[in-house]
């Protein structure tokens, strides 16, 4: 009982630090508030470790190591975050041998913040000044809205748009939808021809979150002393009802995403569009090679005609993990990695990352037409979408669990039982119990 209370107090302390300024928490070596005094350069040569699962990132880091003989960075790798690297970070934080720097996706950052796994690098050289370089919404992801606090450097983003089969739409004489109403009308016409307008994925709950994000919805918010869980917010319900209608009328296919079946549906032209993030461009071109030259990209359909709202799916940050002995140098490297044009170009070429800086969106490497998309300069569409992403979206501290529970419900819907709204309500209840089980306060 005593133990439970004390963890609760720690959790409360950390949580209030989330909204107020750095309030000292009593676990770990340092306290979040004293980072300002700590962030000074070290004497002599510094060696840093950096864990990231981005393929080919070692080549980008080599560029840095050549130019900075006094700050040498070693790349460590592992499976993607939820595949094991996050769990490893927590184990390593516990054992006191976490790497200096780690890749963390935006939706996992709150978990690390609540568990006090991140260094506050706000006092480090150049961090606060770099704010204006980054796309607005990404900055809120790494500061959690706290004053004088920055817990990571934004790395990449996944602004969403609509990939569609230009040739099929033209041949069928269907106008390219610009609103969700038109999208549904197009879906009916496409179904009449035997195709599906798109696929509803059971497990990509963060994709669905991107749609809610576009609709102006929120799944989580933090009032300073408690979390609000709003998976069933009106905006969320609006998106759910819309897709429930498409599923109910058999206007979308239901194959599991990222499978051969799914690739095949796009490759054979049975699925016509995909609302997806910028990095999806590569997924289509490799999954549906036979359709090369027939695709195009348009902005996401809108809830109200004339608007330009966009959602975001994915993206990650480079965080300085708690206990790093060299936050100054680690921060310097993280800022270079995610703002330097040479680094951003290399990240894009090696791993298809889409920058999180405003200047990065106009990199020469992103300006050219892409042959797979009929030589359309598709990244212009995403650059515009990037500026239209609602800056205030907040992720919760237990996203892995939330995703799993909502995906269970979505699976039921695709199998014919329940509704998407019920799945979200159920996910909401499960999330609240999960938060309470971790002694994280929840507003009722």
């Amino acid at each position: 009982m005593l133990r439970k209370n004390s963890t609760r107090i720690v959790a409360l302390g950390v949580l209030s630090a989330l909204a107020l300024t750095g309030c000292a928490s009593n676990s770990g070596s340092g306290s979040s508030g004293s980072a300002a005094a700590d962030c000074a350069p070290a004497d002599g040569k510094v060696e840093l470790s950096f864990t990231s699962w981005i393929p080919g990132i070692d080549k980008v880091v080599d560029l840095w190591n050549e130019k900075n003989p006094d700050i040498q960075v070693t790349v460590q790798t592992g499976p993607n975050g939820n595949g094991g690297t996050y769990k490893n970070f927590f184990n390593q934080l516990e054992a006191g041998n976490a790497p200096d720097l780690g890749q963390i996706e935006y939706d996992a950052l709150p978990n690390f913040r609540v568990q006090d796994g991140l260094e506050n690098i706000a006092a480090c050289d150049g961090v606060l000044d770099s704010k204006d370089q980054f796309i607005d919404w990404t900055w809120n992801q790494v500061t959690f809205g706290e004053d004088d606090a920055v817990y990571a450097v934004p790395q990449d983003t996944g602004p969403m748009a609509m990939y569609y089969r230009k040739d099929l739409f033209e041949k069928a004489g269907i106008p390219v939808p610009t609103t969700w109403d038109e999208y549904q009308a197009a879906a009916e016409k496409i179904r009449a021809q035997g195709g599906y307008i798109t696929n509803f994925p059971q497990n990509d709950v963060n994709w669905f979150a991107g749609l809610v994000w576009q609709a102006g919805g929120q799944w989580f918010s933090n009032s300073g002393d408690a979390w609000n869980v709003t998976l069933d917010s009106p905006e969320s319900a609006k998106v759910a009802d819309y897709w429930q209608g498409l599923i109910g009328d058999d206007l979308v296919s239901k194959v599991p995403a990222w499978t051969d079946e799914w690739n095949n549906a796009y490759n054979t032209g049975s699925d016509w569009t995909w609302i997806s993030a910028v990095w999806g461009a590569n997924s289509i071109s490799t999954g549906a090679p036979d359709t090369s030259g027939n695709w195009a990209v348009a902005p996401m359909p809108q809830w109200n005609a004339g608007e330009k709202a966009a959602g975001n799916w994915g993206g990650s940050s480079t965080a300085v993990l708690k206990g790093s002995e060299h936050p100054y140098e680690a921060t310097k490297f993280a800022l270079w990695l995610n703002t330097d044009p040479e680094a951003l170009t290399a990240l894009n070429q090696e791993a298809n990352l889409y920058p999180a800086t405003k200047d990065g969106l106009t990199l020469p490497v992103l300006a050219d037409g892409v042959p797979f998309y009929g030589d359309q300069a598709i990244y212009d569409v995403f650059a515009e979408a990037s500026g239209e992403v609602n800056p205030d979206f907040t992720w919760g501290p237990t996203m892995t669990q939330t995703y799993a529970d909502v995906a269970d419900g979505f699976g039921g819907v695709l199998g014919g039982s329940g509704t998407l709204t019920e799945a979200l309500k159920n996910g909401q209840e499960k999330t609240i119990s999960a938060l309470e089980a971790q002694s994280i306060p929840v507003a009722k």
Partner: protein
Amino acid sequence: MSATLSAPARKPDASGEPGASRSNRKPRAPREKLMSRSAAMIVMVVSCFYFLLPVWWLFVSSTKSREQFGSTNGFLLADFNLFQNIGNLFAYNDGIYLRWMLNSVLYAGAGALIGTVISAMAGYALAKYRFPGRELVFNVVLGGVLVPATALALPLFLIFSQVGATNTFWSVFLPSLVNPFGVYLARIYASASVPDELLEASRLDGSGEVRTFFTIARKLMTPALVTIFLFQFVAIWNNFFLPLIMLRDESLFPVTLGLYTWNSQVNQIPEIRTYVIIGAFVSIIPLIIAFLSLQRFWQSGLGSGSVK
């Protein structure tokens, strides 16, 4: 396991045609025999099919080019690109895959070899020497059989962290040497197949205890040792959780962890999918070789047991 243990008591050719000798005595048996045999055959064929189907799929998929992989039937051959695919796999990312294979062979081969020696010596000692606390030690080892290796991975990580040895070759290799089931098997087998009289005789001839173990007991225990070796080899080869927790340096990964890491990057770099599949196919080949080349030791062990 019981099959291997009870096998030495039975003559190898006795299991060949048990129905044939019975049918000579009972004239009405053939019909029954035919039915039971065909039923048995059906069960065998179905389960054989069931177990081999995924391997066949893996083989077929490994021979296809990336374009054909998605667009052709998964169980039917298309253009045969196996060797080209393997070449690409070995070249990708400076040949990191070969490094992983080498690591796996080292972890599993050396680990199973040393682990088998340790298990054999411990099991032999528990079977053949009387000392206080013998049963207690054996019971503790038996208890160890019940603890899944996965449950020990995190405590091991924390222990290795304290001595600063995580992310090293030893952090995966040393824990792999321990095999309580091997000790159990070696003890049971040693007490059944190594006669005390033989040990007495060698002692009278002036052979030391260690020499007796390595020259006499080892030979008598060969079938059990091969079994222990194979089991441990497969267990280390397939061990995934411990390397996942311990290792961060890509050049230390065993092939299981490497493939898993690649597989988790498929959304980012879809081309990797091909490498995951071919890599999975290539990674089962050493296991097949290990089984096929070591199974004859089982037979020779059976033979030498029956002659005695």
